[in-house]
């Protein structure tokens, strides 16, 4: 944390600026209006500096003070509210303009510092903005339903069909053992299918997008779905998304019979397609 000593003493009082993201001055429109979330209690303003605007709110520096922040970050309610507000403000801006999103909790102590950032980093911000102009990020998640996968396997795979017949005709202990064999066989098929399906999805979606990457898979506790996630990707696509959604629909129809369901999220600000770090220059 690098802070000029002269401003550090002000940090416990007064207001600072929370920066959500950066947009082009000729695209972003103010006022952002009533559809902003309650979590963004302070009004969201567009701070113009040359060709760029910072999308920012005044926030209490006490609330975001370095010494108070670790405690706040452990408060799940506070964190979720702030994180959702961050996202919703950017989504609102995205309706009118391309936007370079900042990471959570980017806070300036004064408007002067915020403006200095916008003017000193103009070139690199402009370059980041050019890359996402006319584009949005979308997420694609794929889930597999084991029962439907097993049913599909029984149709396609003679060996599995035979095993199923044996299970249904066997009795007692033998039925149990045959059942186990069938389960193991299906699990082995699923193991191979999972990777192939993920690779195939990513390759075909990438071909319909400007760029893309695979994100870590989410466990059911996070994804909120019982089915196992087999793919989680983020893609940079043109704002109209037509070509991408056609590719996705076609993939969805191909994969549905194997028990795979696709889910599209977004449009998101292009979080995954902006430079991770704007170093001090």
């Amino acid at each position, binding site marked *: 944390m690098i802070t000029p000593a002269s401003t550090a003493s002000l940090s416990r009082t007064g207001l600072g600026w929370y920066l959500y993201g950066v947009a082009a001055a000729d695209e972003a429109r103010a006022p952002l209006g009533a559809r902003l979330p309650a979590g963004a209690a302070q009004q969201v303003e567009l701070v113009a500096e040359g060709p760029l605007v910072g999308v920012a709110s005044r926030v209490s520096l006490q609330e975001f003070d370095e010494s108070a922040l670790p405690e706040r970050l452990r408060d799940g309610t506070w964190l979720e509210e702030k*994180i959702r507000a961050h996202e919703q403000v950017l989504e609102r801006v995205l309706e009118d303009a391309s936007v370079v999103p900042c*990471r959570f909790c980017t806070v300036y102590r004064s408007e002067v510092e915020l403006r200095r950032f916008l003017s000193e980093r103009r070139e690199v911000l402009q370059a980041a903005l050019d890359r996402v102009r006319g584009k949005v990020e979308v997420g694609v998640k794929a889930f597999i339903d084991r029962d439907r996968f097993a049913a599909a396997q029984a149709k396609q795979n003679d060996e599995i069909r035979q095993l199923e017949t044996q299970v249904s005709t066997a009795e007692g202990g033998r039925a149990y053992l045959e059942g186990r064999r069938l389960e193991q066989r299906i699990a082995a098929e699923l193991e191979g299918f999972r990777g192939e399906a993920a690779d195939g999805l990513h390759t075909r979606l990438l071909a319909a997008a400007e760029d893309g990457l695979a994100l870590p898979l989410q466990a059911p506790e996070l994804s909120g779905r019982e089915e196992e996630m087999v793919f989680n990707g983020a893609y940079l696509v043109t704002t109209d998304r037509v070509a991408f959604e056609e590719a996705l629909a076609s993939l969805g129809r191909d994969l549905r019979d194997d028990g795979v369901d696709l889910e599209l999220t977004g449009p998101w600000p292009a979080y995954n397609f902006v430079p991770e770090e704007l170093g001090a220059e």
Partner: protein
Amino acid sequence: MSSRELEGYRSGQPAQLADVLERVLDKGIVIAGDIQINLLDIELLTVKIRLLIASADKAREMGIDWWEGDAFLSKGNGQGELEQRLRKLEEAAGLPTAPKQESD
């Protein structure tokens, strides 16, 4: 296509918290030198999310259920202790761990 069924995919609305988290907390530009949030905290939160995404069961077993509150970021911990705890968690979750500084 006229209906979602025929389109071959679902559109998830509203956004799941997990999808928001993996973007807002883990991606987007970081401005070195200007950002007020302590970078160590960001790193730890990011690691915690990765842990959860990689192995929610393991993380839960170990009592890390971070939006319900936990002591992972508790004050007064020396960095050495935090790192040790982090390494334990990474090992338990089967993630690659950072090399140890001291040889043993």
